């Protein structure tokens, strides 16, 4: 059937089940915005800055496992998306990013609002397209969704010139999408699964580090079976949180730079480390050469280029976890590790994560209250920094798809729009955004969008008047010389009033639980400003570049500890 390029785009979105998209109009995308009015099944959310359209699409994807879609016009609209695209790329989040481009005949002439967004985004997309012929558009749109959501997921950008939106085509969508140069791994090799199982069967001090791959492949049940059958502790990478129930006695929480001490120490003492759907990120491993020195490593991943990139793996299991993990669980023999667990219990008891009860009001209390009142069942998003680490430490996730955090890129300003994207995707879910006063000020203009849509997203704003992690590093590594770590804040009550969102200010620990309940009771967005103690450090800590043996413990728990592996 003959239809315009704009119709092809909307048809593609509808075919792929996109119920919400996030965008901002501009000159060259007007044909698409006009067409949009004919497609009520695809809701468009008008953001106030394109960066937030990308973060909302990212939050939508992380909260559902579906492809998130965002849209910007050419030039500044496209470049504003860049931070959000890079965020999604680093964390392998499936997104289709649509950008408008100047007319094909004007490309390369420095036309008004022209930018080479394809060139700009080569390193930060899984793949990208500039469509110069409307007949290519059905195939490209189908490919974009296919690529974004298969294999190692990621953002795919489609740049569409104005005259391609307006051009007409009768080319159909392809039946199947296939590119000769796109290789998806087949089923994992049985000999690798057997070898991995044999290594686990003979290990005495095994640990599993489960990452976001478990979340995306929805293999959390297989992971839980593995934990029980092999009696193995499950540690999470930052982005793997939620892939294993934090209340399970075999959960050791997150490890790494600010991970729980027991998991980090256990890994240093382990004789076998099994990385599942994770990439041995430097914030997790500490100094690579000092990571788990006595352990053989098994690495399960869907992306062969991750093998050996950071850590040389003894056994590599290439494939989709949906295939390989259940087969691995089946191949593993039931085991018990009472001595290993006795050691781990000792570390847990010696170096617990603590929530002080001494009259101070700390960021830890905010997350602890949230966890208690919501029973660990809310969707939680964060920016990057101290509050992110406390959220990761103290919020006890039970399910996957509830944790939205910029891990790889570490994007300030991510948390609030990501929470909104999640709330648009899951209107009935309780969604909390935990943000610092620094990051919130980067994207808070989206408050008006939350108010406009009566989005029941709740914001726990940790106001300590500092860029907390910057201040902590300046205290610890720059001799207390605070350089531009302190920042002024607006009057948040007036801000909330101006934007028409609910507001609660909390200044005492004992009021925090009640504030969470009050916010829950309000049908709409609520800004909960938590005015906490200005200076507080995240512990434990492994300094950047140090080995995981060198843990700086909370002074309230223990002196600096050298872990003897």
């Amino acid at each position, binding site marked *: 059937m003959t239809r315009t390029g704009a119709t092809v785009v909307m048809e593609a979105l509808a075919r792929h089940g996109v119920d919400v998209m996030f965008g901002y109009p501009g000159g060259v995308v007007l044909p698409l915005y006009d067409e949009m009015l004919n497609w009520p099944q695809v809701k468009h959310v008008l953001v106030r800055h394109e960066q937030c359209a990308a973060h909302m699409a990212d939050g939508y994807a992380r909260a559902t496992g579906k492809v998130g879609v965002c849209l910007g016009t050419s030039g500044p609209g496209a470049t504003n998306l860049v931070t959000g695209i890079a965020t999604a790329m680093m964390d392998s989040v499936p997104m289709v990013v649509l950008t408008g481009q100047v007319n094909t005949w004007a490309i390369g002439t420095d036309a008004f609002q022209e930018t080479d967004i*394809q*060139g700009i985004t*080569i*390193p930060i997309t899984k*793949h990208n397209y*500039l469509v110069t012929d409307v007949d290519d558009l059905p195939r490209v749109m189908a490919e974009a969704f296919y*690529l974004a959501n298969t294999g190692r997921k990621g953002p795919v950008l489609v740049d569409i010139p104005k005259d391609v939106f307006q051009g007409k085509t009768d080319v159909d969508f392809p039946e199947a999408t296939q*590119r*000769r*140069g*796109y*290789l998806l791994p087949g089923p994992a090799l049985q000999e690798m699964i057997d070898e991995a199982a044999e290594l686990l069967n003979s290990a005495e001090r095994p640990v599993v580090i489960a990452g976001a791959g478990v979340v995306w492949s929805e293999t959390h049940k297989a992971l839980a079976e593995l934990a029980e059958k092999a009696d193995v502790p499950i540690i999470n990478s930052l982005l793997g949180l939620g892939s294993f129930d934090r209340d399970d006695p075999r959960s050791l929480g997150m490890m790494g730079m600010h991970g729980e001490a027991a998991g980090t120490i256990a890994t240093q003492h382990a004789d076998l480390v099994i990385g599942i759907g994770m990439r041995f990120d430097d914030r997790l491993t500490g100094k690579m050469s000092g990571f788990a020195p006595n352990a053989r490593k098994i690495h399960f991943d869907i*992306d*062969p*280029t991750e093998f*050996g*990139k950071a850590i040389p793996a003894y056994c590599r299991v290439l494939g989709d976890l949906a295939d390989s993990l259940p087969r691995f669980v089946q191949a593993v023999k039931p085991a018990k590790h009472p001595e290993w667990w006795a050691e781990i219990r000792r570390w847990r008891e010696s170096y617990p994560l603590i929530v002080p009860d001494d009259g101070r009001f700390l960021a830890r209390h905010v997350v602890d209250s949230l966890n208690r009142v919501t029973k660990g069942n809310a969707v939680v998003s964060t920016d990057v920094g101290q509050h992110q680490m406390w959220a990761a430490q103290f919020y006890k996730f039970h399910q996957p798809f509830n944790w939205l955090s910029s891990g790889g890129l570490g994007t300030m300003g991510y948390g609030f729009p990501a929470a909104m994207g999640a709330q648009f995707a899951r209107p009935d879910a309780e969604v909390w955004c935990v943000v610092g006063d620094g990051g919130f000020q980067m994207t808070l203009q989206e408050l008006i969008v939350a108010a406009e849509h009566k989005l029941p997203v709740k914001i726990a704003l940790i106001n300590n008047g500092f860029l907390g992690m910057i201040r902590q590093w300046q205290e610890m590594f720059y001799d207390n010389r605070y350089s531009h770590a302190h920042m002024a804040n607006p009057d948040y009550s007036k801000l909330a009033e101006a934007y028409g969102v609910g507001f609660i200010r909390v200044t005492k620990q004992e009021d925090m639980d009640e504030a969470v309940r009050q916010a829950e009771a309000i049908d709409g967005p609520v800004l909960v400003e938590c005015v906490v103690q200005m200076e507080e450090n995240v512990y434990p800590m492994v300094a950047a570049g140090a080995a995981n043996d060198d843990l700086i413990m909370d002074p309230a728990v223990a002196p600096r500890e050298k872990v003897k592996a």
Partner: protein
Amino acid sequence: MRRQHVVTALLENQVGTLNRLTSVFRRKGVSLESLSVGDCEQSGYSRMTLVVSGDDSDLNVVMGQLLKLLDVVDIQDLKVDSSVRRELALVRVGASPQQRGEIIEVVHVMGGRVAHLAKDDLTVEFTDEPRKIEHFLSLMEPYGLREVVRTGTAAMRVD
């Protein structure tokens, strides 16, 4: 181990493929010594030969990243003893009428060809293995190398 690698890649012909490919090298901090590309036996595809020096493990990472590119269908790190490598060099050498005969003799002995003759110089085309080209250039050097243009290595696996 740091050594020279000769890599061939089969590419789908798309706008910007070269850009994506070289972007991987730039991001990984590996520099290209030469690159040659042209049509191949499959329509819609090209074959490219890349010469890079680097650590084996770095190169493995780069090759993995290259293979992840949609436009890259296949990639191979060729072994010296099971590949044919050739490069074309165009060499303009200063040549007075007195020297001409002597230079042409050397060119013929080495298997080169005179492509152009001018009043006081001559242009030689010379095709061989890269190291033979180095040798040929050293023979021409005393006459004065006015300009040297090399195509970069083209290589093919042979069994």
